[in-house]
């Protein structure tokens, strides 16, 4: 026996050595290492979008990926180490696609090494890890030619986004040129240059345009265009007041040819009004901007319903505008934004100023995804009521109980809004003048004569709105509204109807009647004001710098980025959402809410009524000149109302608690069953086995 001892040891040592070598080869050096991704969405495999981007790399200009990950165990936390390995696996996978065009270099920038200097040089961000000032690095620099993109630090919590981030960076360095964004607006959103001869000061462009110019080439597109340059990848239409059919047709064809469109329309555009009457420094003529805008034919083809004479009011999300609560100035919380959409994902709150509502008419082949929605306590009110809200409270308002779509994303295969070909050529447009003449264009068809626009121009509003101009100063005289609103029957509609009669059956050779691809995209916002500087930015009291008041600008830029990124990136992006929610709990919540809604709504509306009474009481005292002095009767009434209000909020709270209780009960049951059922079963079986054993031994 003792002789076999050394043999056993030797064999053991040899076996262990072999096993260690196998592990070193596979684990340490990555030979023969395979991964089998068994997730349904292929979360850990390259998406077709990424593969497409990689296939577009120019062979003469390879992409170098420099991956920096500290690996010294002394400094690198275990969690980051294993994440770094995942990243490396992904990068290896990417490089495997075509090693001749994608060069992967790995660096281990540990403290006090040359590689650390290299990481710094590449602007990879160091994270101080201990009191000795040691830094760790986990970042990627992607370079092609002279263009470089850096992902400074990879956060493990953002793993679902990792592939997208890398794909986007690669896409950016290999793209020959920056995307061109076209901006079409009846307002001087692009600013206007300074003109010496009439001593007009130049107007600064809107901040959204300034921001766009940093990342894209921004081109001005005239709102009277009859063709949109195919070089433009995204067309942003801001407030297309009095748009002509010809221009709509141009947008239509631009979209069908693969362009993407972001449209901002508004039933009541305060900013548009504030430009009215101001002088256009380019022409010296007074500027006329319609306060309402619409894309009547396009919306119809896209399956969007939109009432340009109605504004959304919402008593739950209402906010203060011009010093008073205004139900048309909405502050939308996170819950009102589409949670999963890349445009709105992660945004905190969005302002929505006197905008309209969209409805989904479900056009064939087009999917409409709401991006922002109002609360259930909202409804549409007329423009004149909306305008009056600046000076009077909203009375007699009852929410419709339905959410209104305030912005939406449309995907799919679009059909032309002009299946019969381009609309009949209107009279030659005169591009120098603003929207007023524009409206005269469709007059080729029998339409009611447009209101004489210049009358509407208010001489008392000589505004060159500086970016920070408070919206209140732009208050229009309410009387101007009726004249500004175009006749309810949009001029375009009769033309469209009349078109078949005299239109030529021959379509122009380049006319498209439907999208060339199925991934056309349009984003529609039913408000324009929300993207104006004063509604999106505020001045920081401390530093005097501009700070964001809300997520309006990020949302806009997200949309542009999304639409300009090309379909490849979108495909990668959409995969990032890996979470699968408990739909059942949501369903239960909905059911419970349905059960309690009538009661809740009743209480809420009563509470609202009391609040309004209090408001009215306060108002009368304010207007009487003697501020805040109430006579005893009023005092008493006020106190009663106040205590009522407290009462209501208590009742509401109770009801909400009750609501949660039902769900909590189900949850508790599930938990009890899960934790206790199986152990009990095991105990029962064990007990039975013991009994059987005992009886069998007893029998013996």
């Amino acid at each position, binding site marked *: *026996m*003792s002789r*076999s*001892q050394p043999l*056993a040891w030797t064999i*053991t040592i040899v*076996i*262990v050595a072999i*096993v*260690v070598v*196998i*592990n*070193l080869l*596979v*684990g*340490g050096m*990555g030979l*023969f*290492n*395979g*991964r*089998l*991704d*068994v*997730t*349904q*969405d292929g*979360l*850990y495999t390259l998406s077709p979008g990424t593969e497409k981007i990689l296939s577009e790399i120019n062979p003469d200009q390879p992409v170098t990926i420099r991956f920096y990950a500290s690996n010294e*165990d*002394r400094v*690198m*936390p*275990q969690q980051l*180490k*294993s994440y770094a*390995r995942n990243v490396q696996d992904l990068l290896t996978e990417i490089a495997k696609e075509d090693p001749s065009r994608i060069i992967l270099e790995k660096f281990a920038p540990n403290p006090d090494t040359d590689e650390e200097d290299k990481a710094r040089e590449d602007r990879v961000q160091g994270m101080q890890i201990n009191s000795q000032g040691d830094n760790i690095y986990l970042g990627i620099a992607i370079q092609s030619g002279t263009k470089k993109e850096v992902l400074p630090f990879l956060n493990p919590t953002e793993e679902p986004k990792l592939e997208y981030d890398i794909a986007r960076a690669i896409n950016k360095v290999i793209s020959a040129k920056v995307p061109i964004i076209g901006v079409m607006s009846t307002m001087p959103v692009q600013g206007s240059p300074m003109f010496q001869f009439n001593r007009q000061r130049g107007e600064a462009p809107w901040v959204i345009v300034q921001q766009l110019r940093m990342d894209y080439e921004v081109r001005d597109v005239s709102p009277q265009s009859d063709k949109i340059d195919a070089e433009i990848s995204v067309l942003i239409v801001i407030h297309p007041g009095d748009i002509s059919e010809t221009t709509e047709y141009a947008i239509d064809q631009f979209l069908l040819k693969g362009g993407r469109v972001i449209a901002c329309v508004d039933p009541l555009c305060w900013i548009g009004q504030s430009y009215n009457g101001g002088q256009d420094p380019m022409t010296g003529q007074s500027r006329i901007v319609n306060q309402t805008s619409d894309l009547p034919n396009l919306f119809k083809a896209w399956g969007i319903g939109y009432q340009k004479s109605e504004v959304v009011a919402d008593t739950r999300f209402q906010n203060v505008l011009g010093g008073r609560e205004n139900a048309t100035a909405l502050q939308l919380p996170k819950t009102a934004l589409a949670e999963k959409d890349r445009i709105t994902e992660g945004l905190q709150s969005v302002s929505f100023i006197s905008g309209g509502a969209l409805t989904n008419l479900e056009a064939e082949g087009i999917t409409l995804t709401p991006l922002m929605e109002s609360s259930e306590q909202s409804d549409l009110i007329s423009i004149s009521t909306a305008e009056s809200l600046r000076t009077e409270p909203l009375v007699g308002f009852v929410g419709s109980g339905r959410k209104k779509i305030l912005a939406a994303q449309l995907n799919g295969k679009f059909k032309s809004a002009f299946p019969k070909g381009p609309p009949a050529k209107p009279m030659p447009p005169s591009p120098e003048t603003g929207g007023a003449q524009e409206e005269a264009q469709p007059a080729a068809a029998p339409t009611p004569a447009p209101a004489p626009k210049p009358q509407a121009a208010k001489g008392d509003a000589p505004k060159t709105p500086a970016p920070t101009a408070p919206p209140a100063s732009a208050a229009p005289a309410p009387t101007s509204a009726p004249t500004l609103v175009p006749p309810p029957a949009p001029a375009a509609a009769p033309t469209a109807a009349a078109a078949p009669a005299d239109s030529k059956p021959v379509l122009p050779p380049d006319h498209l009647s439907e999208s060339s691809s199925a991934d056309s995209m349009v984003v529609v916002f039913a408000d324009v004001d929300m993207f104006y500087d004063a509604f999106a930015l505020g001045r920081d009291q401390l530093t005097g710098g501009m700070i964001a008041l809300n997520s309006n600008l990020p949302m806009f830029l997200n949309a542009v980025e999304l639409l300009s990124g090309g379909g490849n990136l979108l495909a990668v992006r959409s995969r990032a959402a890996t*979470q*699968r*929610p*408990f*739909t*059942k*709990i949501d369903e239960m919540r909905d059911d419970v809410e349905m059960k309690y809604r009538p009661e809740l709504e009743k209480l809420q509306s009563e509470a609202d009524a009391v609040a309004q009474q209090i408001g009215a009481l306060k108002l009368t005292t304010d207007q009487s000149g003697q501020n805040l002095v109430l006579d005893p009767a009023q005092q008493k009434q006020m106190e009663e109302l106040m205590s009522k209000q407290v009462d209501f909020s208590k009742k509401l709270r109770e009801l909400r608690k009750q609501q949660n209780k039902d769900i909590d009960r189900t*949850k508790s049951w*599930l*938990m009890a*069953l*899960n*934790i206790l059922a*199986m*152990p009990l*079963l*095991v*105990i029962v*079986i*064990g007990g039975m*086995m*013991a009994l059987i*054993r005992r009886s069998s031994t007893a029998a013996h």
Partner: protein
Amino acid sequence: MIQRDIKNIWAIYKREFSSYVNSPVLYVILVIFLLATMGFAFLFGRFLDQNDASLVQAFFFWHPWIYVVLAPAVGMRLWSEEHRLGTVELLLTMPISPWQAIVGKFKAAATVWLIALVLTCPIVITVCYLGDPDPGPIITGYIASYLYALACLAVTSAVSAFTRSQVVCFIVSVAFCFLFTLIGYPGIIDWLINILPAWGEHVVDFVSYLSFLDHFYEMSKGVLVVRDVIYFVSVIYVALVVTGLGLASKRS
């Protein structure tokens, strides 16, 4: 030859497994395991509040720590008991090789863990009822979890081959499993770097590669990684080889 191997292994397996079924230890361990996995998932992992129809975060996350303690409890009697009662001599005088005995016993203990994992099915049913989970990560999660349990069990088997006291075996095995689980943690690595001379860097690299945890989480996310599977299989294999070595040294 192979047929006889299988027959022998099967005989040992039956004997060992029926002794598990007949001892209260099995039931106690199963109950503790089920209470622990579910309790951690629902109370600490807040499974129902996470609104995430997957088992990775709330459920599988805790498994390694449970195995560190419970796998040795299942495996501690594998050989210690035989040593104590002296039945190991008897067993090995039978016309079976030590290797067959080792594999047979290990499989019996492995079956206990299979039963334990099967009994966690209520949480799978719950997650399917509440949402629409991705089946892939659930399957790989169970595979990873089972491999982890087997690795701990194999380590325990090796330890038990060297000792005749179940208690000593349990404590030493827990310590080993704990070490293997924690080995990648910076504190331990620091200590290793300090005690090893400069050339030890690669040794430390290798040692941190040995960490069980490192190989567990990625698989539980829904990716079967060859290197991780190979790692666990190697650990099990080496531990069983060491068990054979322990038996041989005891007998000599």
